[in-house]
């Protein structure tokens, strides 16, 4: 039996359906799992996307030939029956289920199992072969509850406030920032200030009806707001990681710097980025959830695509599940 998904120079290819999943070079037919830059690129003939993911692609890729699919609705491409299922990674993220030649394969894209108020929860899709991400493929990665982390963030802001400092929290502009804001909503008492690059994504999420903490722009009133007058002392600010160390920071007279990412589980990563605080909040599955998910899909064959694949593959093989690696070009940002 031939493989339903193969690695080609353009990306992951399904020969039965003659389409690519998250390709990194221009192709005619692309099925996208989500809108992060390493998965969604310009130049494709057409894009199949989940309905929830459409506004994100419109924001990131502009006007394109989009083919919108509802979660769980089957559509036919070539000889393959294809459907998209929630992956729980970010708004609109999807797993791709492919049925052809009497087999079922599922490509996970990026996914997580933790509750996330900003997107539909991960759905276990039974399959023969499961192509999984492995960004955090070591048992040292186990996530604390995001609600607890949100309380830690507010506590940190208050600690900064007592010292007359701004609390600048770096997080990725698509997905992580909105999730942090949604987790903060029930526990925070004051608006959160946003860097412009984050605000654009927050608007997309708000229009999609996602509830998040109140926000203001750092540049509100042309950067002459009352908060700006005090150098944003005592305020929480969300900024993209690229703002760290940039001239943009000059407006904050005194500040502490934090980073929200699964990578912050290791002190070495926090110190390497010169962060005062690391907040462990991830949009990827941690180690126990990788193993649990693989088990629940019932897959007898597993292919790990990106991240720390070595340990996961060996663990699965030792546990009696045939596992291997495919070298994709997806990143390990979180």
């Amino acid at each position, binding site marked *: 039996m031939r493989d339903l998904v193969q690695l080609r120079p353009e990306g992951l290819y399904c020969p039965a359906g003659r389409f690519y999943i998250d390709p990194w070079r221009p192709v005619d037919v692309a099925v996208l799992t989500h809108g992060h830059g390493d998965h969604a690129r310009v130049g494709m003939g057409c894009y199949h996307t989940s309905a929830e993911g459409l506004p994100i692609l419109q924001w990131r890729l502009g006007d394109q030939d989009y083919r919108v699919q509802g979660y769980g609705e089957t559509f036919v491409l070539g000889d393959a029956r294809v459907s998209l299922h929630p992956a729980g990674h970010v708004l609109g993220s999807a797993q791709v289920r492919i049925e052809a030649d009497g087999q079922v394969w599922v490509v996970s894209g990026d996914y997580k199992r933790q509750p996330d108020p900003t997107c539909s929860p991960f759905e276990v899709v039974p399959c023969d072969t499961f192509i999984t991400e492995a960004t955090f493929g070591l048992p040292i990665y186990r996530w604390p509850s995001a609600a607890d982390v949100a309380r830690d963030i507010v506590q940190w802001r208050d600690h900064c406030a007592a010292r007359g400092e701004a609390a600048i929290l770096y997080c990725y502009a698509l997905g992580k920032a909105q999730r942090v804001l949604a987790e903060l909503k029930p526990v925070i008492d004051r608006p959160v200030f946003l860097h412009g690059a984050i605000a654009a994504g927050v608007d997309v999420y708000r229009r999609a009806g996602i509830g998040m903490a109140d926000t203001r722009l750092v540049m509100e009133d042309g950067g002459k707001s009352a908060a700006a007058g005090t150098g944003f002392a005592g305020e929480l600010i969300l900024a993209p990681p690229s703002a760290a160390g940039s001239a943009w920071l000059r407006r904050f007279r005194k500040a502490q710097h934090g980073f929200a990412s699964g990578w912050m589980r290791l002190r070495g990563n926090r110190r390497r980025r010169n962060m005062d*605080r690391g907040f462990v909040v991830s949009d990827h599955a941690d180690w126990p959830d990788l193993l649990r998910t693989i088990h629940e899909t019932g897959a007898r064959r597993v292919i790990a695509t990106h991240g720390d694949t070595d340990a996961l593959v060996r663990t699965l093989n030792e546990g009696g599940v045939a596992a291997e690696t495919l070298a994709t070009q997806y990143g390990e940002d979180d």
Partner: protein
Amino acid sequence: MKRFAALYQELDRSTATLDKRAALVAYFRDAPPRDAVWALYLLAGGKVTSARRKIAAVGEMRAWAATASNTAPWLVDASYDQVGDLAETLALLIPDPAQTAPERGLADWIEEVLVPIANRDEAERRDVIVTAWLGLPFDERLVFNKLLTGALRVGVSQRMVQQALAEMSGVPIARIAQRMLGAWSPSPAFLRDLLSADELPGDRQQPYPFFLASPLEGEPDALGAIDDWLVEWKWDGIRAQLIRRHGEVALWSRGEERLDGRFPEVEAAAAALDVDCVLDGELLAWQDDTAAPMPFSALQTRIQRLKPGPKWLADAPVRMLAYDLLELNGADLRDLPQAERRRQLEALLRRHPDPRLRLSPLVTLADWDEARALRDESRERGVEGFMLKRRNAPYQSGRRRGDWWKWKIDPLTIDAVLLYAQSGHGRRSTLYTDYTFGLWQGDALVPIAKAYSGLDDKEILELDRWLRAHTRERFGPVRSVEPVQVFELGFEGVNLSKRHKSGVAVRFPRILRWRHDKPADQADQLDTLKALAR
């Protein structure tokens, strides 16, 4: 343990000295003395475990954690490679407790749980440690593991701890530093004496904290007229304080270890004096009637010998070259100007000529140009350059910039090829930052040195990326890489060595620059390095 874990976390988080000191002051102020003195002991580099007090060997801890967390041993190793810190790795692997065990203070943990199981059967030690792990939340598990693996490494200097204690107690930092020298046991009584405002009998038996010189970067002309400075040779020996009080002699190294018995010839010379005094100087192996000292390696073999026999004393006789007088007949002279202490030192040694206890001579120079010319002869004289000491400066404690400078000769350099890389520790634990370099012998590259420092953060990242993509083999945390990258290494000296595969041992190797311009086949030959050896 909660309080100590919180202190550890605050120290680990903060990069600002003031914040760290404030955290220390708050801890020492609020913690029970029993806990506080253990914290002090650990922050000063003391360890709970030792060769004679075995509680949990590193290999045992890995095995116990593997079982307790239901993790395959190879997966524990793979995790450790990623984290780079064993205490942290194991804390991450052990599951969080469903219910936290009742709180126990730092001293109770050490004295009532850990010390009593020392040297017991493995099963007994394992049960206690694993039970502890399963009852502690993450932050406390991490610190608990740090107690077992030995080093806190939390970016706090001895001096910062002493500043905090001084700020809290009002006792001058110099006295605190002096009282903390040498070996002490972490008892509440020690802490009480340490912070006592009164003079204690023990105060008179301790060495003084050493005043350390800073490296002079650039030219000395910026220091002003040469007449304001005393110039001495910089000796390549062991810095030591020779103490004679009430006729009893003690010898302390700069590493705060007592050297008593190792250098009997020097102790005999001190015993023969007719006054009490504390001398600061350099121990050197030096044959009589020769112009230059023996290489450092000769001294190194002597320091290993607890009680050297006549052959050792004849083969590598040791003398002390004194350059400072800190105390005379019970009077602390450290606040006197350098030149005045020197004058009294000269008078003292003039009255007691002894080949084993000599004056480190002053070098008389008309100006900095003459100094530069003479400094070029350093290598032939077996010295490392000059020491510059401001004539009117007091004897301070620790490394304070401004009054004592070491003006060393430029290092020897060689172009070597990168062979192996290993991940670093602490801040660099997720990067490959420990490098091994080799030189050519025929068409083979022979490893000659390891170096850790010398690249900036950007270069470290670039090299890290390069070597991940050009790895040949992996042995645990070590990678062998394609022998392509050439680096200029600097080092202080080369000695012939039978213990090293290359036949030479280099002193203080470090990376001076990355030679992007140089292909590997143009790196230096091993023979070139051997020719520099003494």
